[in-house]
């Protein structure tokens, strides 16, 4: 029986929710105070009655993957930077722990409370203040949903230099706090390169105003870079200025079927040589990923046969004829060299969207099958798939388990997923710390784009030198001496 169907058959009907604290039984609640009615009334005074929620908080307590869940009793949603500052000032004075939360689409349990931390939601800071159509700059608040930002700047012929499957729910503030990667890093570079300015509120309520629209500004230390990727542990991002690329006029998509991962790498190399600067996404997936989206979500493969691997390349440019010429050369070279045995090119926007949806829906499809152990790692390209094969071998005796590999080939970023019918510590012990040891041995990163959050915090040493970790702790103490900002996250709490 196909592994996907076998796993589905064994999985219980409901998803497992592992409380953050129970997932790590040795994790003890920090010495924070507990909220009282007075605190709640004070917050209501700052943000208004509409900005306080004390009931029906599952949505804030639990992560998108249904793998961690906390016990918060209060969600505070300020609607201005001043309100954020006032809320944090009070929390700092009262030693109340706080979890800043955006769209709650994180994959490492970093945006949810572990115990009773107050959730500070950015959902009401959703104003897009200004778009400069000449310079291609947008100023907006942290709570703007990525899709909305994209639509708004799209009206002026610009696009956001970041795109990921969670675009309909994630907030730009969260994208910055986690330094999200996504599909277009290969074209637009990492997000931090597009940030011109930011405003942040520190844990003690101080407002750090680093707002700027300058493309080049070498005046002193670039402090905003510290907050990008800090996962809400150093402060709360409230505003950002982003540099925007032009919306491409001509977008094309091609999907190739390959017999081996070596062939995928050859395909990738050829495509980058032929397509050069018009490449806007290079993704790969294995056959079990394709089977999952076919079977679980009913999305059909555009290729007739099934292939061991699939390579997806997207091009974006300003001139259709120019791009098509490059693509045709690329396709000829790929088939001449034999590194792909079949392929399709999208003949319409609909087809292009469908092909990308096959890649974007792998995570939702796998989520529906059973419990997902997700690993997002950077590896040298030639070793990217061997890790999947090694894990698959380790899991061969676990009933109903199957392993898949897919990801951003152009960034050497593998998404390794192991799926079991339900969470079990025995399976986890086969996977961890083996995965981290392997990645460390190959000098890769144990978290390419997902961040450390709660789930990976204790493994920081696999990718960072002790001296670096010590410096991170020093900086954390500088910004957050009371340790109230998103405790238990990012930095190891149990080495």
């Amino acid at each position, binding site marked *: 029986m196909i592994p996907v169907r076998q796993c589905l058959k064994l999985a219980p009907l409901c998803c497992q929710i592992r409380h953050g604290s129970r997932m790590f039984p040795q994790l003890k609640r920090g010495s924070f105070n507990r909220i009282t009615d007075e605190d709640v009334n004070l917050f209501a005074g700052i943000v208004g009655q509409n900005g306080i929620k004390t009931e029906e908080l599952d949505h804030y307590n639990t992560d998108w993957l249904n793998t961690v869940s906390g016990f918060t009793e209060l969600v505070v949603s300020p609607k201005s930077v001043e309100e954020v500052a006032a809320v944090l000032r009070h929390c700092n004075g009262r030693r109340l722990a706080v979890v800043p939360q955006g769209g709650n689409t994180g994959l490492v349990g970093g945006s949810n409370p572990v115990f009773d931390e107050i959730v500070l939601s950015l959902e009401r800071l959703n104003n897009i203040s200004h778009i400069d159509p000449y310079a291609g700059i947008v100023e907006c608040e942290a709570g703007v949903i990525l899709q909305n930002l994209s639509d708004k700047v799209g009206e002026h012929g610009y696009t956001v230099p970041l795109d990921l499957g969670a675009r309909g729910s994630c907030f730009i503030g969260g994208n910055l706090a986690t330094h999200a990667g996504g599909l277009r890093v290969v074209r637009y570079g990492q997000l931090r390169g597009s940030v011109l300015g930011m405003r942040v509120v520190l844990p003690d309520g101080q407002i750090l105003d680093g707002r700027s629209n300058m493309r080049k500004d070498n005046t002193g230390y670039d402090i905003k870079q510290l907050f990008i990727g800090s996962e809400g542990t150093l402060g709360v991002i409230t505003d950002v200025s982003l540099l925007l690329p032009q919306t491409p*006029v*001509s*977008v094309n998509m*091609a999907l*190739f079927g390959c017999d081996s991962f070596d062939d995928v790498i050859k395909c990738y190399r050829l495509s980058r040589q032929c397509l050069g600067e018009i490449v806007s996404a290079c993704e790969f997936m294995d056959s079990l990923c394709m089977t999952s989206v076919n079977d679980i979500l009913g999305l059909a493969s*555009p*290729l*007739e046969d099934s292939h061991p691997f699939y390579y997806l390349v997207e091009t974006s440019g300003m001139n*259709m004829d120019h791009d098509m010429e490059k693509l045709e050369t690329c*396709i*000829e070279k*790929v*088939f001449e060299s034999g590194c*792909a045995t*079949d*392929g*399709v*090119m*999208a*003949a*319409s*926007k*609909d*087809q292009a*969207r469908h092909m990308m949806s096959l890649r974007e829906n792998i995570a939702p499809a796998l989520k529906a099958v059973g419990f997902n152990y997700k690993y997002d790692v950077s590896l040298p390209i030639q070793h990217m798939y061997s890790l999947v094969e090694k894990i698959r071998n380790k899991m061969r005796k676990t009933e109903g388990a199957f392993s898949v590999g897919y990801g951003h080939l152009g960034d050497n970023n593998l998404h390794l997923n192991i799926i079991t019918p339900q969470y079990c510590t025995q399976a986890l012990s086969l996977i961890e710390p083996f995965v981290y040891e392997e990645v460390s041995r190959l000098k890769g990163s144990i978290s390419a784009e997902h961040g450390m959050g709660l789930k990976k915090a204790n493994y920081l040493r696999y990718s960072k030198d002790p001296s670096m970790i010590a410096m991170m702790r020093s900086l954390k103490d500088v910004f957050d001496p009371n340790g109230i900002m998103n405790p238990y996250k990012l930095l190891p709490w149990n080495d």
Partner: protein
Amino acid sequence: MSGLRVLVGCKRVIDYAVKIRVRPDSLGVVTDGVKHSMNPFDENAIEEAVRMKQKKVVKEIVVASCGPSQSQETIRTALAMGADRGIHVEVPAGTDANLQPLAVAKIFSKLVEKEKPDLVILGKQAIDDDANQTTQLLAGMLDWPQGTMASVVSASDGSLTITREIDGGLEDISVSLPAVISADLRLNEPRYATLPNIMKAKKKKIEKMTPDKLGVDITPRLKILNVVDPPVRQAGDKVPDVTTLVEKLKEKGHL
């Protein structure tokens, strides 16, 4: 029944997923630099012809398109899907927006004289003009039976059984060959043009023609006076209870 020759029509239109913008002169929509693809209904038409060829009912598929030089790309897509050869009836760029169903039907009627197909399959309507006229006009000109809005087509001994999607539901008819049919969206799921086929398609023949050479007068009979955006939808009002709802309805004169 086997060995039929099929003539399929396809049209290059603005891609259905593109956000249309009205031209500043209000006489049409902006087409410059906008993504174009094959009319979705025509994809169904080609797909049906290819499936009939796979079942060996059809021996040869000729695909024809009337339009500017870029229509060749649309013909190439059809060739990559499985058509055998193409005919491009070229009209000067810019005038293609005024190429109306009557003119197209006349052109196709001349192509039928030339190619002598047993069956003509067209898309039900083009998504730019939504006319749904060419099939009917052509059938009339040729005095051939027509099976329009086809969602199921099956062949047997010199005739076709067609299920049509009509306002009241579904209608089954039988047409004798030769005939003209128009494809609806539910007729089939069009295949993707695979890359090896796209490369093979480059070697397939596309014959070039003009309306003049066919002796067809394509002067438009209809003149577009004005093209405007639909009115912006007004925001609604949320009311807390039924009493307020009734009040508001009375206020606005709806009750």
